[in-house]
């Protein structure tokens, strides 16, 4: 039997986990996005070693489950001698750091492919026009290529943000007490599984929905052509939902 009053009680128990969940998602998203740009550049570099290194990193992190990556970073690296007994241990002994590191590296691998797609989609005509106008390469990159590439990859980044919010739940596996961590504690305390999962699901759903809305608003703002559609309705198919 599902008790409605207990769902509410569970909801109130899980709410304190929201700030930690959002913090994990935001920090890993920002760091991951920042790391994605150099990785994408490396991946597209003419230097074969740089390109191959980036490719290997992307393949490994996109080709293995995030849970495995979290476990390997948390439990695996703790068995490597120079980490366990070196100066880095201050960082790696902390479950929060390990969670952020795993989420960031995972996010960067996916996001770098989005950035690469964005870079490749910049129309040649625009680059030629910039060149004809006498722009230097850095200026062209800053004014033309990156803004266009970013705008192009924005929907993909929106998806990444939502995936990131959901992925933070895996941090509970290494004792980080965010929403899912609190949920599994409540489940083992009360043995009422369905109610707790429903409450947790509702919280995640709300967060995903709100971020999808936020990303869509940002996209709308960055793409004037979307705003000029008669009737003022944005294209509902586009965006990160």
């Amino acid at each position: 039997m599902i008790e409605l009053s207990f769902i509410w009680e569970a909801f109130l128990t899980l709410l304190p986990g929201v700030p930690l969940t959002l913090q994990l998602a935001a920090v890993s998203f920002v760091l991951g996005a920042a790391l994605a740009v150099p990785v994408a550049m490396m991946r597209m570099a003419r230097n074969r070693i740089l390109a191959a290194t980036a490719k290997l990193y992307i393949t490994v992190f996109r080709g293995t489950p995030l849970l495995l990556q979290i476990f390997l970073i948390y439990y695996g690296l703790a068995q490597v001698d120079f980490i366990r007994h070196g100066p880095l241990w201050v960082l790696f002994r902390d479950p929060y750091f390990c969670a952020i590191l795993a989420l960031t590296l995972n996010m960067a691998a996916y996001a770098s492919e989005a950035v690469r797609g964005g870079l490749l989609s910049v129309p040649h005509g625009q680059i030629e026009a910039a060149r004809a106008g006498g722009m230097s390469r850095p200026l062209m990159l800053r004014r033309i290529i990156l803004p266009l590439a970013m705008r192009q990859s924005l929907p993909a980044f929106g998806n990444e943000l939502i995936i990131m919010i959901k992925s933070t739940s895996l941090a509970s596996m290494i004792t980080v007490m965010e929403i899912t961590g609190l949920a599994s504690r409540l489940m083992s305390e009360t043995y009422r599984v369905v109610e707790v999962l429903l409450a947790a699901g509702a919280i995640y759903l709300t967060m995903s929905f709100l971020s999808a809305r936020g990303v869509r608003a940002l996209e709308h703002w960055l793409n004037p052509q979307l705003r000029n559609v008669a009737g003022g309705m944005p294209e509902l198919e586009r965006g990160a939902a």
Partner: protein
Amino acid sequence: MRLTFVPRTLALAALLAAAPALAELPATLRIATDAESPPYSIAKPDGSVEGYEIDLIKVACEKMAVECIVEVSDFSGMIPALNAGKFDVIMASMSITDKRREVIEFSVPYGGTGNTMAALKGSGLEDLPTTDGKLSLLDPQTPAMLATMAEMLKGKVIGVEAASVSADFAKTNFGAVAEVREYQKSDEITLDLLAGRVDVMVNGRSYIFNAIQQPQNAEMMLVGPVFDEGMFGLGTGLGLRKQDTELKAALDAALTATAAEGIMKALSEKWFGFDVTPASLR
């Protein structure tokens, strides 16, 4: 795994006298175990299970003259599965707590191992005060000893299993001075104890006794006393649906008889190396 027993006329007669509701029992009992808490129940490589609980339920089913089927299941899904009618009995070294009593019913306890602690050799925590035998939480000396221990545990990280009785114990007594970190599984605490992320682990005596004997855990050692009674006194029980009162009466009678005949003590000495028969059944 299927355990079928031919009723023994004498045992059945004795039990019929003790539990008149026996006639209402189902012919087959489906029993769920998680096989993750040696030596309560242990999964063997061939997929079957063995252990103290398995031997004990075999005896109990024989006394009740029912056929018992033991199935391995994931611990977290067991209560909903029980209430949904997928199993009739949960047998998974489950501590009896008041909060769990709100959702399910428990049999009389069949195990009461108490709790103890483990730390790494050379950590300084081997100097934690200890006793020769069990330390009752009800003993008037105990609060002073716990205060001394809290002093030594200041600023340390204590690893416990989430929502366990050990977690309650650690939070109540050391939560103000130390960080109590919760894990899903005991083996994860052991890994972090060996890695140095956790300074001391509080867990069931049987888990810690078992863990320190494993060669890969050679750095780990027992520290402090074995705490018993008080919050640990309720022990481990079988989980049942609230409405199955006849089944509870029959299982209680069977377990009580097993203890009275000395079978529980013999089985626990075989699997644990010490007597886990709860004080209430001795």
